[in-house]
């Protein structure tokens, strides 16, 4: 379940023709972009980022995917990880940190292994999103290294309100009590709330019960 490539999916590489506007490596003073030999970048991460860069006409386009790769490897965008990605991409670490800090899903501070985002936006709020968030917080209390629970803006699943995204998969509609269940399942390494998995849900009008006029 990588946020960068699909599981085992081979995405054909794009040719690297230099883009008109952004193709060149920015001229730099010394030391601003770390050299690869200085950062101890794991081979696998380097190859991954290089593959990502090759998909775009301009290598810089790979910055978000590269940060995803860093986050996947280290759990969050660690300063070391950012430096490694920066050395491979030939941009400054500051640039990547700036990008990472802009986006809600990239973490520039440590987070738990499992990331749980609970929607508290309008539709979910109307249907108990705040209580669901509280329930998850309670269930995960004191286990910060394992669980990162946060309220989140609309996740684009108001049809299953109130809902949560657990390790990048959507579940809903959830009852507050299901928070504890989900946490227990995560700890036990079991499938999480199988009956509430969005991917298994039919279209609204196709739900059992049919049309209700």
């Amino acid at each position, binding site marked *: 379940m990588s946020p960068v490539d699909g599981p085992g999916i081979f995405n054909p590489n794009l040719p690297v023709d230099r883009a008109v506007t952004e193709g*060149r*490596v*920015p*001229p*730099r*003073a*010394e030391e*601003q972009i770390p*050299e*690869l*030999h*200085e950062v101890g970048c794991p081979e696998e991460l380097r190859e991954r980022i290089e593959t990502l860069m090759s998909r775009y006409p301009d290598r810089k386009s790979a910055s978000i995917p590269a940060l995803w790769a860093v986050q996947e490897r280290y759990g969050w965008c660690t*300063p070391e990880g*950012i430096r490694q990605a920066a050395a491979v991409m*030939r*941009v*400054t*670490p*500051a*640039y990547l*940190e*700036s990008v990472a*800090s*802009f*986006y809600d899903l990239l973490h520039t501070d440590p987070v738990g292994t499992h990331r749980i985002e609970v929607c508290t936006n309008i539709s979910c709020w109307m249907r108990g999103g705040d209580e669901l968030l509280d329930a998850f917080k309670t269930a995960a209390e004191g286990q910060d290294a394992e669980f990162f629970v946060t309220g989140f803006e609309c996740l684009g699943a108001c049809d299953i309100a109130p809902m949560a995204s657990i390790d990048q998969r959507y579940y809903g509609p959830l009852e507050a009590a299901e928070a504890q269940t989900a946490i227990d399942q995560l700890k036990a390494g079991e499938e999480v709330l199988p009956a509430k998995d969005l991917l298994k849900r039919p279209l609204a009008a196709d739900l059992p019960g049919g049309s209700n006029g």
Partner: protein
Amino acid sequence: MSPEQRSVTITVDGREIEAVEGEMLHDAARKGDVEIPVFCYEPKLGDPVGACRMCLVEIEGIPKLQTSCSTPVRDGMVVHTRTEQVKHAQSAVVEFLLVNHPLDCPVCDKGGECPLQDITQGWGPGQSRVIDEKRHFQKPIELSPLVAIDRERCILCYRCVRFSQEVSEDAQLQLLERGDRTFVGTFDDRPYVGPFHGNITDICPVGALTSYTYRFRARPWDIEQAGSVCTLCPSQCNVSFTVRDEKVKRVLARDNHDVDDGWLCDKGRYGFEMFSAEERVTEPRFKGGTKVEWEKAIARAAEGLRKAGAGKVAALVGDASNEEAFLVQKLLREALGSAHVDSRRAGGPGRDTIVALSQPNLTAKVREIDDADAILVLGTDPLHSSPILDLRVRKAIRRNGARLVVATERPTALDGGAEAIARYAPGDAAVFVDELVKALRGEENVATPLAETLKEAEKVVVLWGERIGDFAQSGLLNLAGALKIAETGGAGLLEVPDFSNARGLREAGCLPDAGPGLSEVAVPGKGTEEIRAGLESGEIEGLVLVGVDPLRDFPDTAAWDNALNAAKFVVAFSTFATATAAKADVLFPLETHAEKDGTVTHADGRLQRVRPSAGRPGDIRPGYLVLSELAEALGLETGIWSRPSAFEALTAAVPFYGSISDSDIGGKGIRWQETAGAERVPASAGASGEGSPDALRAGVSGDPSPKSPNGTGATSLLLGTYRDLWAGPITELNPPLKFLAPQQRLEISEADAEGLGLVAGDKVRIGQNGSSVEASVVVKERVPAGICFLAEGIAEGNANSLLNGGPVRVGITKLSEVPA
């Protein structure tokens, strides 16, 4: 206005204004004296971003208000800047900006010179409706050892970030987080240290970014601004000194598009505390440091030089104005009958080459870099040698699509922007230039990739370093021919010399084989290296040093030490009490660019005026007066007793300066090539022939085995040296800059590091012919194998001590015990 730009008429608030098609409405309006308030707009930072929304105006025919900073004018445009709708928008934006601003003006350094204050007063709502809590940050905190950041005051115009992105291109200063949580910061909260970062304090429109060197030092009503020129490097940037009680408190850029584009490097900006450093020589001294009265000192100097005898005195000139340089050579030639005068740290080309290179149609002006189609950087790293040109080259590439090629010994800061890069071995510049000329004529060789780019360009600007040496400099003439530089407008050669005023010194006559105005001399004197040899052999007995420090700055320190010891009588003019100054029998103080009154000549031929801005510390006297008195004591009446008379004598002696008056120079300077006198430059004898590579290649010398106790297993590499931007007394004597003083580092390639069993951080000894220096190892991707680099001019482990006039091989040994 270039011919392709069309003039248009627009109407702003009922006034007709002539504007250039495509220029931004804000700028056009200003021509008609209509002021539109702005925060984020600063054309020097690149394209407008339209972020602050302060400059909204009404344009007839467009329903929504438009940002005048980003709207190009069109003919017939009708604009209103003071309608109710516009006023409402402007006051709304000011109100929004103040929602989170702490309004701590009474304790803010910007108070009184703050655009936010001014615009709030002029366009703001006049009252506050905000009662909610403002955002809080820890404040002020250290953005760098030189700049404090107060994030609460920041209005997120992101000028500073754009500077880092689009001007200095270091991409170190960034916006972090998003929305109203956004703040300006660096990676992992590390300090922002870039050689230009002080500029962000100039462009910040609020008190968010302030220099530690100026915090709480003065209020705007206590200070005066005085314009001068910075002579700390060949860029000769225009500066404005903030002076309080006769002392410089701050240095600001004084925008001169022809010179500096409104930027300063941090050396120029923060290097002002040395004006009152303890190490300054503030009165005449005798050897041993005894302070003496002026009259005595001059008498003793005159006597000593006279004793040395006619033809047996030499002079070396470095940090000096044109007038001072003129007087030194006059003193030598006319009062002491000696022609041994030079203004170069090592050898240099002969008069023929210098005259040929001085032809007006070969010299590029600084602003021609902006519009060049291609730029060749040859044998110099502008970042270190003339930093402001580094910014200029970046601008040309970024904004105008110039194509860059680089040919140097050492990797440069500009490499990343280059289409092709050539690295030649230390000392091989001439060979490379020769190859490049051949490649331009169609031969396939190592220089072909660079030639390909250059051939496609019409206007080529060549930035070349004085250090490429004399053979390469004559090779430049062939290169200029191959690139059709003389025939192409906007093309040219631009030297990056070692000394700030190198061109002025040469043109004032400080060359062994050329007098003032590059005139021919009957009997040429000795150049720098022959002078040294002459001192050692006793052929020369007296020495006058003006603003030079051979023991730090010239190659082969040991030989210079011998020479200075051998000299019978040394008169030195020095700003600081240096090791060289300590050898002087009579030591005179030298003024800095905050005190001096005189002219300097930029490498592009621009004469600019250095003006006294602050009081002279101690008992310092103007250099031209001292030299004139010395001449008189030697029996030569110069007639120079004032600054104007010094300038007159100079322009009378240098024919091509002849039609320049004080007022021509004014605040921005004037290029002599653009005056009537230009035709009086000596005619060139024409380009020299091509050399064979072997003749051009300087023989490598040196015994690489270091005579050190633990010198086993030494491997030899060719040594290249460079002058780091931060090497020298300016860094060491300015408390705020001290942290930048470079430590010696041995830069080697990954291959050699592996071969030598070295890793980054290892301590090593680098030896050559009995001398050695210590350094820590730095492994660099772009350093070619077989070559290593060391810094010159630094306090500890100066690489000049390993040099001896040509390329050398050095031995490297790892120090078994790493000093703690």
